[in-house]
């Protein structure tokens, strides 16, 4: 069964901490994405990557960075966590956008 795995379901971090969210897919997909999901705002794209070591900013990249050193792994980094980054973070992958996305189960991050 193909899947996208996010390393943590729940995380609680302090303001100012550096936070790493990990995502691994086993489908050999070229494209990987990080979204945040907030009530009333839907899914908003933070960053995406269409190849190893390649990255593109999405709609809300401020305060975030990403790393893709291997095809199967895409990491989201919060350089200095703030309370307004409390959210559900979803990782997704696709071979072609045409075919839709496969999502991970999400990481609910709380910054206190």
């Amino acid at each position: 069964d193909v899947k996208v795995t996010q390393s943590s379901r729940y995380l609680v971090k302090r303001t100012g901490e550096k936070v790493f969210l990990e995502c691994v897919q086993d489908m050999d997909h070229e494209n990987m994405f990080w979204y945040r999901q907030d009530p009333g705002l839907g899914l908003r794209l933070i960053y995406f990557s269409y190849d190893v070591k390649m990255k593109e900013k999405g709609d809300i990249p401020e305060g975030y960075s990403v790393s893709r050193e291997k095809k199967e792994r895409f990491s989201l980094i919060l350089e200095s966590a703030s309370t307004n980054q409390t959210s559900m973070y979803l990782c997704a992958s696709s071979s072609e956008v045409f075919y839709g996305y496969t999502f991970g189960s999400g990481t609910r991050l709380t910054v206190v």
Partner: protein
Amino acid sequence: QQPVQSPQAVILREGEDAVINCSSSKALYSVHWYRQKHGEAPVFLMILLKGGEQKGHDKISASFNEKKQQSSLYLTASQLSYSGTYFCGTLRTSGTYKYIFGTGTRLKVLA
């Protein structure tokens, strides 16, 4: 820019029907529908490509209007397992292909 879904939320009794709409201000290349149950990953339901297309499986179906600016998801004789958040994913052809999710619709089915 973000496709608008309506209604924002809906509560049904088991066996009732529901329609969820996804509307774009511009023509779309394709529409995908997803369902996300509470605490779980969104799951891909189906894709629509052609204007006027209708497709579905079991008691969940969808349509794409002729102008390719609106899609509707039809849930017939709803079951408790249909509860969750539904959202559309849309692919626009404005210069470069851009994939944008709709605003989401929360659906709850009561026994």
